[in-house]
C-alpha cells in the first residue's frame, strides 16, 4: 500500500463550496448584476405583466379585484374585437413597411451619396419629428378632407365635380397616406446612424465583382442593415397599433376603428367599474404581436455577425450618383412637404386664426398673447425641455448599456436585455401611464416616489428605452469585437475600453437615440398627468388641455413655441456636440503624434 505522493499532496487544495466563478470580486459582480436584473424586471417587465393579469381580474384598479374569465370571453367572442384587430394589423404593417422603405432610402441618400443639401437632411428630419401628431393630423385634415379643402377643390375643378363633393376625405387611403408621412422621419432617424457606419469598401468589393450600383445596394447594403431594419420595423409596427389621433381623425368618420380607440372605449364603456379586463384582453393581442415580431427579428438576425466597423481601412465615404442625385433631392423635398411643411404651415396659420382651420374669419396675434401671458407657460416650457433632455439621455444611456451588455454577455443576460428593451412596447399607448402607476403603487420604494419628479423621470426612462434601444442597438451590433479586444490586450480596463472605444464609435446612434427619446418624452401626454403633480405639467399636456377646451389656436401657438424651444436648444446642443467631437479628435491626433515621436526617439537612440 502506498501513501499519497509528494506531487499529489502539493496539488491538493481545500475543497470550496463555491466554484471559481462565484468567488471574490466575481461574486460581487454577480450579486450586482443580479440586483440590476431585479430592478430592470420590476421597472420594465412588471407593468406589462400586470396588464396581462388584468385581463382576468375585475376591480377599480387594473390587475386588482375578483378573478374572472367573463370580460376576457366577452371581448374575444365579440366580432368587433377581430374587426378592430384586423384593421390595426393592416394599418400597422403597411405603415411600418412604407415608412421604413422611405426612411431607409432617404438615410442612404443623406449619408451614402453626394446629393445636394445632404448635410441639411438630418436636421430637417429632426425638426419634422417634433410636430405633434394632433396638429400634424389637423393640418392634413384641413388640407385634404372637407369638401372645401384645397385638394378637394382642385379635384372638383379638374373633374368637374360639385362644390359639395369630396373625392378625398377620410378612409383607408387617406389614413395610410397620413400615418406613413408621420412615421418617415422616425424611420429616417433610426436608420441614418447605422447607414453612416457602412464601410464603402464593401460596396466597392461588390462593384468590382460585377454588381451594378442598384444590385450592390440591395445585395450588400440592405442585408448588412438587417438588425437595425428589423428592429425598427417591429417598433414601427407597434407604433401603428398605438396610433390614436390620426385614426381618430381619418378613420373614425369612415367607420374604420383601430386598436387604441377601441381600448379607450372599452375602459370607459361602463361608468360604475372600469373595464380594465376587457381593455387588457385587447392588450394581449398587442403582446402577442410584439412577441411574434421580436421572435421573427431574432430568427432573421440570429447569431450572424453584422459588424461593419472594423479597424484598419474603415471608409464610410459617400459616392456620387450623377444626375440621379437631383431625383433623390426631389424625393426628399416631397417627403419633407408631406411629413412636415404642409401640416406645419397649416399649424402656423391655425395659431394666428381666431378659429384654427377657418381662415375666412381673419387672423390675430391673440392666441400668442394669451399663451405668453399665461401664468405657467414659461415654467411648462422649461420643465418640458429639462425633463426631455434628462429623461432622453438616461433612456439612451440605459439603451446603450443594455445593447452592449447583450452583445458581449451570455445567453441569460441577452434574453433579459431583449425582454427589457421590448416589454414596455407591449402596453397600448393609451394605457401606459395607468399600467406604470398601478404596477409601482404597491412597491414600497417606488410607492413613495409617486407624485415626485423622480417618478416621472423613471416612468419616462421605462417608456423611452425601447425607442432609444432601437436607435442604439444597430450601432452596437456593427462594432467589431476586434476593436475592444485590441484595447483590452493593450491593457485598458473594461470601463476605459467602453468610454474610449465603444462610446465614441456609437456616438451618432446614441445621439439619435437621445434625441428621438427626448422628443417622445416632450410629447408624451399619458405619464405627466398620472405620475407627477399638477404643478409639474409639461407644455404638451397644457397644449392638449387647451385643445380640449376648444382653444385650438392657443394650443397650436403653445405647441409651436415648444417646437421653437426644442429647435433652439437642439441646435445649440448640436453645435456643442460638434465642438466636443472636434476637441476629442484633436486630442486623439496629438496623443498619436506624441506617441509616434516617442517611438521615433526610441528608435533613434
Amino acid at each position, binding site marked *: 500500500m502506498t501513501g499519497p505522493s509528494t506531487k499529489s499532496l502539493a496539488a491538493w487544495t481545500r475543497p470550496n463550496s463555491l466554484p471559481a466563478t462565484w468567488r471574490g470580486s466575481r461574486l460581487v459582480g454577480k450579486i450586482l448584476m443580479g440586483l440590476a436584473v431585479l430592478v430592470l424586471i420590476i421597472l420594465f417587465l412588471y407593468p406589462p405583466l400586470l396588464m396581462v393579469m388584468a385581463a382576468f381580474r375585475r376591480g*377599480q*384598479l387594473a390587475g386588482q379585484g375578483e378573478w374572472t374569465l367573463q370580460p376576457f370571453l366577452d371581448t374575444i367572442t365579440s366580432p368587433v374585437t377581430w374587426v378592430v384587430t384586423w384593421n390595426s394589423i393592416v394599418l400597422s404593417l403597411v405603415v411600418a413597411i412604407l415608412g421604413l422603405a422611405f426612411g431607409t432610402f432617404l438615410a442612404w441618400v443623406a449619408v451614402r451619396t453626394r446629393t445636394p443639401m445632404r448635410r441639411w437632411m438630418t436636421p430637417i428630419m429632426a425638426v419634422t419629428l417634433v410636430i405633434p401628431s394632433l396638429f400634424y393630423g389637423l393640418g392634413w*385634415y384641413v388640407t385634404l378632407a*372637407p369638401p*372645401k379643402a*384645397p*385638394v378637394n*377643390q382642385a379635384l372638383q375643378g379638374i373633374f368637374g365635380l360639385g362644390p*359639395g363633393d369630396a373625392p378625398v376625405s377620410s378612409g383607408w387611403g387617406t389614413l395610410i397616406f397620413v400615418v406613413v408621412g408621420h412615421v418617415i422621419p422616425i424611420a429616417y432617424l433610426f436608420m441614418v446612424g447605422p447607414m453612416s457606419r457602412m464601410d464603402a469598401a464593401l460596396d466597392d468589393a461588390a462593384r468590382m465583382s460585377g454588381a451594378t450600383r442598384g444590385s450592390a445596394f440591395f445585395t450588400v447594403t440592405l442585408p448588412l442593415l438587417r438588425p437595425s431594419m428589423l428592429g425598427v420595423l417591429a417598433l414601427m409596427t407597434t407604433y401603428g397599433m398605438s396610433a390614436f389621433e390620426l385614426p*381618430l*381623425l381619418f378613420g*373614425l*368618420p369612415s*367607420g374604420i*376603428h383601430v386598436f387604441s*380607440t*377601441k381600448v*379607450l*372605449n372599452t*375602459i370607459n*364603456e*361602463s*361608468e*360604475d367599474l*372600469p373595464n380594465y379586463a376587457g381593455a387588457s384582453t385587447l392588450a394581449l393581442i398587442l403582446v402577442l404581436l410584439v412577441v411574434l415580431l421580436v421572435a421573427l427579428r431574432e430568427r432573421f438576425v440570429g447569431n450572424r455577425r453584422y459588424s461593419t466597423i472594423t479597424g484598419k481601412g474603415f471608409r464610410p465615404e459617400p459616392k456620387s450618383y450623377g444626375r440621379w442625385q*437631383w*431625383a433623390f*433631392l426631389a424625393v426628399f*423635398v416631397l417627403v419633407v*412637404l408631406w411629413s412636415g411643411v*404642409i401640416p406645419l404651415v*397649416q399649424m402656423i396659420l391655425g395659431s394666428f386664426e*381666431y*378659429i*384654427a382651420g377657418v*381662415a*375666412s*374669419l*381673419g*387672423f*390675430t396675434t*391673440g392666441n400668442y398673447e394669451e399663451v405668453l401671458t399665461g401664468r405657467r407657460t414659461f415654467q411648462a416650457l422649461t420643465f418640458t425641455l429639462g425633463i426631455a433632455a434628462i429623461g432622453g439621455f438616461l433612456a439612451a444611456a440605459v439603451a446603450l448599456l443594455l445593447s452592449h451588455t447583450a452583445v458581449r454577455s451570455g445567453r441569460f443576460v441577452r434574453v433579459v436585455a431583449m425582454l427589457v428593451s421590448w416589454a414596455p412596447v407591449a402596453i397600448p399607448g393609451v394605457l401606459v*401611464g*395607468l399600467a406604470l*402607476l398601478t404596477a409601482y*403603487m404597491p412597491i414600497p420604494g417606488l410607492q413613495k416616489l*409617486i*407624485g415626485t419628479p423622480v417618478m416621472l423621470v423613471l416612468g419616462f426612462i421605462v417608456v423611452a428605452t425601447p425607442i432609444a434601444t432601437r436607435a442604439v442597438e444597430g450601432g452596437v451590433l456593427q462594432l467589431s469585437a476586434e476593436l475592444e479586444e485590441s484595447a483590452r490586450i493593450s491593457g485598458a480596463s473594461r470601463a476605459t475600453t467602453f468610454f474610449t472605444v465603444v462610446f465614441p464609435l456609437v456616438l451618432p446612434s446614441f445621439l439619435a437615440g437621445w434625441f428621438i427619446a427626448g422628443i417622445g418624452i416632450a410629447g408624451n401626454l399619458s405619464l405627466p*398627468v*398620472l405620475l407627477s*403633480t*399638477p*404643478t409639474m*405639467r409639461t407644455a404638451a399636456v397644457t397644449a392638449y*388641455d387647451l385643445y*380640449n*377646451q*376648444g*382653444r*385650438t389656436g392657443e394650443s397650436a401657438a403653445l405647441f409651436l413655441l415648444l417646437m421653437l424651444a426644442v429647435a433652439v436648444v437642439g441646435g445649440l446642443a448640436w453645435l456643442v456636440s460638434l465642438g466636443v467631437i472636434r476637441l476629442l479628435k484633436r486630442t486623439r491626433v496629438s496623443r498619436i503624434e506624441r506617441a509616434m515621436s516617442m517611438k521615433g526617439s526610441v528608435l533613434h537612440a
Partner: protein
Amino acid sequence: MRNSQRWLATAALAIPLVLVTAGCASGAPEGDGGAAPGGSPYGGEVDSPEVEAALDALYQEALAAGEDQVVVYGPPPPQDYLDAFMDRFPGIEIIYEQLQSQDRVTRLEAEKASGNYAGDVAQDGRTPIVNMGLDGWCAAVDPIVDVPSDLIGIDGTVFYGQATVFGVLINTDLISEEEAPKTWDELIDPKWKGKEVMVSPAAGGAGAFASAMLLTPQENADTWGMRIVEGLQANVDTVAKDAQTVSSVVEGTYPIGVLAYYPYYFQTIKDVPNAPVQFIMLEEGNTWSKGAQCIIENAPHPLAAELWLNWTFTVEGQNMLAETGTYPMMPGIPGPTGLPPADEAGLITLLSDEDSITGYADYVKQVQALYGG
C-alpha cells in the same frame, strides 16, 4: 455649379413647392380680421354681506395655514372664470389637471398609497363624481352659502353647481333661423341628409352619451327613442372631435351642426363676434350634462378647497359661470347670454343621479354599435 445642374436643382425644389403653394392658397383670409373679443367686466358683490364676511374669514384662515393653491382634478373651465376667483382671492391659485373618470380614481389610489396627497377637488359630469361620493372619496362639507338641498347629494359630499347644454348650430350665411330644424324630428328629415355634421359617437364621449339620453328613461324612449337615433345616423356626416363640429359649421362646410357643445360656440362668438353662426336650442329634449364637484378626502388644502367650492355657488361665481357659457344651477341666476333660463330651456329628463351610474351604459353601447364602434 454648371447650368444643367442649376436647372435640375431648381426643378427639384420648385415642383414640390408649387404643390405646397397650391395647398396653402385656398386658405387665404377673406375677412377683415374680426373684432377683438369683448371682455366681461369683473366686479359686483360676491354675495350677501354675511356670506362675504364668512368667506373672507375662511380665506384668511387658509392663508394662515399656508394654503396657497387648490388642485382640481377635472376638465378645466374657461380662464376668465378662474381669474374671477383669483382676482377676488389673490393668495390662492386654482390649478386644474385634466384627469377624468378612471384616471382620476387611479391617481387618487396612488396618492393614498404613497401618502403624497395632491388633489383637493374633483370636478366632472355628475356620474363619475357621484360614483366617487358613493365610494367614499369625497368629504362632507357644510356650505357657507345657502345651497338648496337638491343641489347637494351623497350625504353632503357632492355639489351640483352647473350644467352645459348641447344644441343645434347653424351657419347663418347658408340657412336662416326660420329654416333651421327645431325638433329632433326635423333634424332627421331626409332633406338635411349630408348637410348635418356631428361628433362621432363611435368613440364614446359626448356624442354617445347625448344620444343615449334619447333612449332612457322610458319617457324619453317613448318620445324619441331609437327612431331618432337611427334617423340621425342616416342624416349626419361625422367628425372625430367636438371642436370640429363648430369649426365645420363656422367655415360653411356644413349648414347645421348637431349636438354642438355650447361652451365651444360661446368661445367662438367671444373670439369672433361676427362669425356667421347661431346656436339654437330645440323646442324640447335638449341634451345636457349636469356638472358636479366634491372636496377629496385628505385634500392637502382643505380650507382653500372649501373657499373655492363655496365661491362657485355665490352670486359672483354663478354669474361668472353664465358669463363664460355654462348654465348656473342656483335659483334666480339668469342663464348664459342668448339662452333661456334653465327651467324654460326644454332640457331632456335625465336618469336620477345614482341610476345614471349604470343606467346609460347599455344604451351607450347600442349607439356606438350603430356607428360601427
